[in-house]
């Protein structure tokens, strides 16, 4: 979607909505409630009280540790597209006055996949939270899991981030996961499923193996398979929260556990 286009066509119901109207609804289709994916910067604006956000480790960016073909080009493209240096943005700020450490993964950057710098940023964010006694909120829009281009270094970030979540847990600090748009594979099978509370926006796709990984298997899928609503019924997440209510719900939870 370029900035020149004044209207946006909902991929779910096909209705046209003006950009201005979509801004008012936090990028939710006014007709069918489709939640458009939103980037990390926009998510911070949505959740964190104005003027309170301090970014952590903004300078960290991925190199190409394995010398994987074309990886630098892909990183460069995603950097230009998103203005981010990595697929996760971390920092601290207030939610309705409650201080939190927050991480947001961005689906536009290598599908939000996790590699060395990503894992490092998540772990540093959690470690700072433990030092400062902050609760942690991580919003995941990661369709990609462990990033292929960094091979086993990526896979091991699953263990590394999960270890940090365990430390946070042992420090008796609240950890909330918010799943938005999609959350799969190595991200979902590590920090994104380890929250004390797991929230998801409506329609979010949640699971281990996504469509592409399943393409070789012919199986009939139950209706609504891997949607937030479906996995909530299956007992895997705590609740489905409308984007417009998300900040208030988080504030309530922070208040309860404070």
């Amino acid at each position, binding site marked *: 979607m370029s900035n020149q286009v004044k209207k946006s066509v909902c991929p779910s119901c096909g209705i046209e909505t003006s950009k201005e109207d979509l801004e008012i609804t936090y990028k939710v289709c006014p007709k069918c409630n489709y939640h458009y994916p939103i980037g990390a910067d926009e998510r911070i604006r949505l959740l964190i009280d104005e003027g309170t956000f301090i970014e952590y480790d903004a300078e960290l960016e991925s190199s190409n540790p394995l010398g994987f073909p074309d990886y630098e080009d892909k990183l460069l493209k995603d950097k230009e597209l998103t203005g981010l240096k990595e697929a996760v943005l971390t920092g601290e700020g207030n939610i309705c006055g409650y201080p939190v450490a927050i991480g947001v993964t961005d689906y536009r950057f290598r599908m939000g996949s996790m590699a060395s710098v990503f894992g490092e940023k998540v772990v540093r964010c959690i470690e700072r939270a433990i030092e400062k006694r902050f609760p942690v909120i991580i919003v995941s829009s990661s369709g990609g899991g462990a990033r292929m281009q960094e091979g086993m270094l990526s896979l091991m970030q699953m263990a590394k981030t999960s270890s940090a979540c365990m*430390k946070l847990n042992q420090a008796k600090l609240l950890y909330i996961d918010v799943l938005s748009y999609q959350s799969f594979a190595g991200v979902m099978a590590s920090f994104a499923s380890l929250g004390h509370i797991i929230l998801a926006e409506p329609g979010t796709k949640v699971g281990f193996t996504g469509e592409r990984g399943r393409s070789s298997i012919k199986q009939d899928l139950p209706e609504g398979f891997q949607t937030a609503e479906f996995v909530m019924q299956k007992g895997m997440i705590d609740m489905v929260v409308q984007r417009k209510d998300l900040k208030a719900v988080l504030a309530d939870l922070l208040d309860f556990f404070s």
Partner: protein
Amino acid sequence: MENNELDIENRIAVFEKKFDELKELASIFNTDMTIEIKAIEKKLLKEKKLLYSDLTPWQRVLISRNSLRPRSSDYINSLLENRVELFGDRIYGDDPAIIGGLANFRGYNVVFLGQEKGRDTKERIAKNFGYMHPEGYRKALRLMKLAEKFNKPVISFVDTPGAAPGVEAELRGQAIAIGENLAMMSALRVPIISIVIGEGGSGGALGVGVSDKILMLENAIYCVCAPETCSQILWRDNNHAPLAAEVFKLTAKELKELGIIDEIVNEPLGGAHKDPKLAISRVGRALKKNLDELVALDSDELVAKRYLKYRQIGKVA
């Protein structure tokens, strides 16, 4: 894609067959060719050593999947005594793709886990080809918690193409089951040793692989996803799997250099399947040595060291 045949193995086999024929001829004609035969034997061994010392990553992928390679059950049955296998996750069912239980290993009472691919077709189907379901990860977790409660070390044999990708696995929370294992294993207050004996397939392997020491057999592989999958995703065909294997750095040697695994256990010439007994005894020795070291640490120190071990992987300045 069943492609266990290594080209060099075929070449060696052809040569060995001709060599046997020559020896037979010599005996039929009652000709003394001892010197010639000795010379050829020597040359053959030298050639084999040369060929096997310089395997490409893709050749190692094929060896790691060789159906004749010793399985977890082979190591467990040979190395562990007084075995009691335990079943089930107490929630949903038992997962035959992983075996687990209690045993004695060279003076230590241990809890063992072993991902099991099965050997013949019937067994492979029964074991779901080593693809674990959530109940398998939960069974493993239940046994590890038991180990922690009674202060017994854990030995985990890793050999899987990956975690089960089907609908059933999703319905029972595959991602959550694996994530839970990673977190719990990172802080388990008893020693954990894992050894990749064949294929270390992605999160499916990691789900029983977080440990104080990660050992790997010389020809085993450990990778973020199967090279075939990588080829499909990045090149949209299957032909680039050997290239993917190359760029992934999935061999024991490369992973040791990257600081991801701790120790390589050398295999008999040509791979563990050429001399399973020798392979198993070497694994036994490596496990014992590492276990001796780990049980000497107190729990706090053990867990702190484990945290740092993973903390430094992919560390950036």
